[in-house]
């Protein structure tokens, strides 16, 4: 019992993950404090405010972060907040396409250049984040589509970190720490994170003021519930429930097997 062929485990997991997509369970998703804090912050913003949506996560992490990205973007659009988008990943254009196709208001209700703007890709890691905090215009001369910044009224208003009311950093790595160091500690701009689950362990002991954190797909599902528009996160939550239950069961079985084989000896 203690030595099951691994492939049995893998097949069980593979099938178990498929079931909830075919036959949703729809267990309720309770709201956690970290997510509520991000929601409340966005809720407090309005048409006069500017939010920065920074993309530092690749397409390969979509299943974990896409639900939160879409839900937060929908909320921003609902509150009519002005949105500046830029990012640090080479495949981010595909991500921006995904967001705009899921949030059609960006092309209907919003006017590009005035209400939202996509500045494109930036290399340079922490140095770049620090530079942007003090002078956006010297880093970006034009947006992604080659329109010079002078012709983009929204980016004209964003000269440095001080002109931004909330940073939402989508992050699968260390960009949250860069934003905390240079935008929050340096300039006092509130920073919130859309992250992958493991970042929770590290962010909580980082000595800084974080507005809140959407922890992976769980955070996305909670956010969808709060904005009242269920989506990918909520659907995936069923798969999370099933798989996590499976982990608990398998760990329990492994221990029963372990204790029994030890008794025999």
């Amino acid at each position, binding site marked *: 019992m203690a030595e099951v062929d691994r492939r049995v485990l893998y097949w069980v997991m593979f099938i178990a993950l498929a079931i909830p997509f075919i036959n949703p369970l729809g267990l309720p998703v309770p709201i956690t404090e970290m997510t509520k804090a991000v929601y409340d912050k966005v809720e407090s913003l309005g048409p006069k405010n500017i939010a920065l949506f920074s993309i530092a996560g690749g397409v390969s992490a979509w299943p974990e972060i896409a639900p939160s990205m879409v839900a937060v973007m929908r909320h921003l659009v609902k509150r009519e907040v002005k949105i500046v988008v830029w990012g640090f990943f080479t495949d981010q254009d595909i991500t921006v396409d995904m967001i705009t196709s899921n949030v059609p208001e960006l092309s209907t209700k919003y006017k590009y250049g005035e209400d939202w703007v996509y500045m494109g890709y930036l290399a340079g890691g922490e140095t770049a984040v620090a*530079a942007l905090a003090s002078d956006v215009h010297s880093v970006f001369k034009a947006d992604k589509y080659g329109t010079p910044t002078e012709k983009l009224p929204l980016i004209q208003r964003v000269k440095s970190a001080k002109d931004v009311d909330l940073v939402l950093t989508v992050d699968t790595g260390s960009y949250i720490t860069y934003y905390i160091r240079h935008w929050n500690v*340096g300039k006092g701009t509130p920073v919130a994170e859309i992250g992958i689950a493991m970042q929770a362990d590290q962010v909580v002991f980082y000595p800084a003021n974080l507005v809140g954190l959407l922890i992976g797909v769980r955070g996305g599902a909670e956010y969808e519930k709060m904005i009242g528009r269920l989506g990918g996160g909520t659907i995936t939550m069923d798969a999370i429930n099933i798989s996590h239950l499976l982990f608990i069961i398998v760990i329990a079985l492994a221990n029963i097997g372990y204790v029994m084989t030890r008794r025999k000896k």
Partner: protein
Amino acid sequence: MTKATYSVGADFLAENLEEILLITTGRGFSFVVLVLSFIFFYIAIQLAKKGKAPKIRRMVAMDAIDEAVGRATEEGKPVHYSPGYAYMTLSSEQGPQTLASIGILSYVAGLCARFDVPIIYNTCIADSLPLVEETLRTAYRNEGKAEAFDPKCIRYQPGQSEYVSAVLGTFQRERPAVNMMIGGLYYEAVVIGEAANVIGATQIGGSANIHQMPFIIATCDYAMIGEEIFAGSAYVTKDPLVTSGIASGDWMKMLLIAITVLGAMLELSGVNVISQLLKW
């Protein structure tokens, strides 16, 4: 895919330096710590030269290398070695871990050369290739078997997941008896570790990346945690540097523990001199 249209230039940094530095004040004490690290290291070396080097505890994982290579010899199977993702370059903050890993590789390759065990090295770090090749070549030459070295044992893949897929394939096709993964590991730790368990390989793993420690411990027979991988190369070569490095590290830990205890007590009694010092 987009081109790197903009990046931050030197001229920009120079112009805005004061503002940037304003953000990063608070490095004063860090600098003191760094200088103290140098001083502690110097003292430890002087002590070692006088034969007063402190004893350190055994490193089980390093001692296990000989045994593992011995097992590969008996079974007539290769040894697999890989340094992890490490941001795919020596010029990142993961670079030192790759270097430490190559240091341990030079010992492992020597053993492999001595016992005529083939070694397979999979990597995705292109700029480490010259070092790896030279390390392996030298290890073979030092054993007097220069002609036995085949550079085709070094396999390169251009990215993290590519490297993972190649290692998975290598395991089933060439069935190494030993898998060693030491360096700046990321998600590959659990994948390679479990895939190596499937083929029953003896595993020695090590990394200073905290996020992979649970998985190295879970999958490997022998695990090197944190600073052990940095001490590894000097440990196997019986270099007095190792004790000096570890001893000076220990002093630094004790010093900072003392500061923590003192700081906590002062903070609790309302004196914030230590926290001000740390923020300096």
